[in-house]
């Protein structure tokens, strides 16, 4: 039995290197991070700062070059198989030719549950779309579908990787209403975002990374206080730098 940890996420010296044509890129560079159960954490940083790579490491989709990451004290893959952690990815990950309801039902079946899709669709605010083919849904609707699929295993930890990119104002509002409504149950939520407003509105805690390193960590108020102006945007611009190689920017 793995010892139970008091942390939802615990990363120590976490590092990930990618070998490419232009040499080795250290996307995550010795990250130490501990997230307590029930926290809602905004994960901020410029393009190429290592946000998505960190999310991949926490989900076990990538193996660290060095360091360790534990999710509720377990290997990430174990936590996934146990249904304790789920994620909403930014793009892809949906079959366009099946319906919204089928997507959720399949996910449930893969977790060995026979629960109907209805309640999950309702919690994600897309109950009326059950019979719509995924390919006919708007970006915002697809994102709420990913959220519904993530809810199926009733995860203790939910990771959102830039979940509202490309959504219009109403889509963003609806999405966050659904997330916030759901987080009241005590779920741990970690979301990467480019919208500082979302961090201010929805997060208990802000973690700012730049070039794969942690540069600020605290409550929204604490992090804001790091800049004389008290603006999160100023803190962001002061503490982060342009990525060394622009080509690495983006979400891979």
């Amino acid at each position, binding site marked *: 039995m793995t010892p139970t940890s008091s942390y939802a996420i615990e990363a120590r010296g976490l590092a990930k290197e990618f070998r490419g044509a232009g040499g080795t890129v250290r996307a995550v560079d010795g990250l130490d991070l501990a997230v307590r159960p029930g926290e809602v954490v905004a994960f901020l940083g410029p393009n190429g700062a290592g946000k998505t790579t960190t999310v991949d490491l926490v989900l*076990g989709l990538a*193996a660290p070059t060095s360091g360790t990451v534990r999710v509720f004290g377990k290997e990430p893959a174990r936590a996934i198989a*146990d249904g304790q952690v789920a994620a909403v990815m930014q793009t892809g*990950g949906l*079959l366009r*030719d*099946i319906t919204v309801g*089928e997507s959720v039902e399949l996910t449930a*079946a893969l977790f*060995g549950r026979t629960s109907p899709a209805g309640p999950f669709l309702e919690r994600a605010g897309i109950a009326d779309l059950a019979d719509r083919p995924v390919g006919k849904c708007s970006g915002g609707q697809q994102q709420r579908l990913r959220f519904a699929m993530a809810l199926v295993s009733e995860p203790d930890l939910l990771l959102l990787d830039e979940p509202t990119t490309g959504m219009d104002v109403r889509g963003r509002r609806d999405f966050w209403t659904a997330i916030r409504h759901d987080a009241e149950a005590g779920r741990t939520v970690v979301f990467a975002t480019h919208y500082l407003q979302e961090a201010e509105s929805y997060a208990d805690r802000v973690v700012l990374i730049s070039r794969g390193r942690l540069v600020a960590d605290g409550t929204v108020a604490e992090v804001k206080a790091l800049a004389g102006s008290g603006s999160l945007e100023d803190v962001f611009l002061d503490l982060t730098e342009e990525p060394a190689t622009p080509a690495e920017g983006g979400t891979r």
Partner: protein
Amino acid sequence: MTAVSQPVAIRAYLRLELRRMLRDRRTVLFSLLVPPAVFLWAGTSAENRATEIAPGTNLTASLLVSVALYGALLTATSGGAGVAVERAQGWTRQLRLTPLAPWAYVQAKVLASMVLGAGSVLVTFAAGAFAGARMPVSAWVLCALAAWAGSLVFAAFGLLMGYLLPTDGVLKYLNLILTALAFAGGLFLPFSDGTPMAALSRVMPTFGLAELARAPLGGGSLEVVAVVNIVAWAAIFLAGAAWRFRTDTARV
């Protein structure tokens, strides 16, 4: 803790996959309509029906088996290639966030295409029975089984090619490649012994399977070269597909 057994997850996935295939017009067309149509068009002339190639067996029966094998190969190949197509859509990545193991996903896809392949062979053979194919009862059964089971080799071929070819329009390319391979391997029209084409056809991946599927017509003898052909190509495709698959799941 949810401990989900892979067989349960595979069954759930298989059910959805079969529904998807029957809804997809292209799949239904190429698996269930094109093979019997090709047979009726090319194999059922009065001359073919009157030509005895073995006791109680006419040329129409031989052409029927060839076309049925072609249909089964087409179905198995697109089933295997579907893995790479869905990988490009980020679907395999999404599945990594469920308890379904990557190999179990491939297994479900291949199983589903084999079910459809069985349907393809049955429909084509039914057309043959109504349109004047004559062969012994044992040959009806054994030829159908051989064509169907042999197509499994091409599920691995499709899997490998899906990884190697650009995913855009991969099925279109594969249809062309497969048709070329079918002709080159003497699947439709065996080449006369001693010609250079006959020698070349013997190394084609379609040759061994064509010989295997037609073997019950001539009393069941199968040349060693055909057996070697099947085993060699099965090994090549399987090793190639396993290699690409393993590199891929390590990376995503």
